[in-house]
């Protein structure tokens, strides 16, 4: 059985501080973002016109789906889009 002094408990409680605002929210939105990203890529594979539109403005394509166009998601979309 471990013994904890109040001082040690205070130290340990102080080690796990909240991540900066917005980080957890961005992580929590991953499922929605990924589903939307999959949808864009799938449509781009079927529709060359749509693909061209997406390539022209990746950020707008994400925003149109209601996704915050973070650099990470923009880069992933760029990487996953089918070759023309």
């Amino acid at each position, binding site marked *: 059985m*471990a013994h904890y002094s109040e001082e040690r*408990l*205070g130290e*340990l*409680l102080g080690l796990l501080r*909240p991540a900066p605002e917005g980080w957890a929210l961005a992580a929590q939105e991953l499922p929605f973002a990924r589903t939307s990203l999959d949808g864009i890529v799938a449509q781009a594979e079927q529709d060359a016109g749509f693909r061209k539109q997406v390539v022209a403005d990746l950020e707008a394509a994400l925003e149109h789906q209601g996704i915050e166009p*973070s650099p*990470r998601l923009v880069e992933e979309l760029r990487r996953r889009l089918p070759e023309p």
Partner: protein
Amino acid sequence: MAIALSDAELVHRCRAGDLDAWNELVERFSRYVYAICVQGFRLSDADAEDVYQEVFTRVYTRLDTLRDDSAIRPWIAQLTRRLCLDQRAAGSREQPTAEPVDATREQVLADLDEAFAVRDALAELPDHCQEMLDRFFARDESYRTISSELDIPQGTIASRIARCLGRLRESLEGRNHPASPSSG
């Protein structure tokens, strides 16, 4: 006081596409991942944010590869450590403030595991204790701020903190494995 799902139950629900469970999983491990990045590996906030988001992206996309659902915490810890090392190797955008030697880093990471177990025990205390201890120790709020935010007399805060720490200690000392993985 809400009854928390075990880690294994949480992972199971995440796999089934339960968005509330995913939100809870992120909430449960957010501070831990952040602490590994900035305390264990001394990453800048910019680099830590990259690692943090990559950790949760990989957790989300690779949850099916986790063999033991109750082992989510060590899995996340290992993933975070590997990504922190990759980030450092790739050359960070900002220089880290200091390079802890391996032994020091291992001690920091061990302390973070212990801190996680303490937070796990904290989650079992009444809400007012969780709030009080978190505000004072993890958010560095002053007695004045806590008094104002929680609408309680400033003069009673020290004794309330002491009482809540006592309850936390009792809870921890009643456990057989204080530094074991979280509630799995």
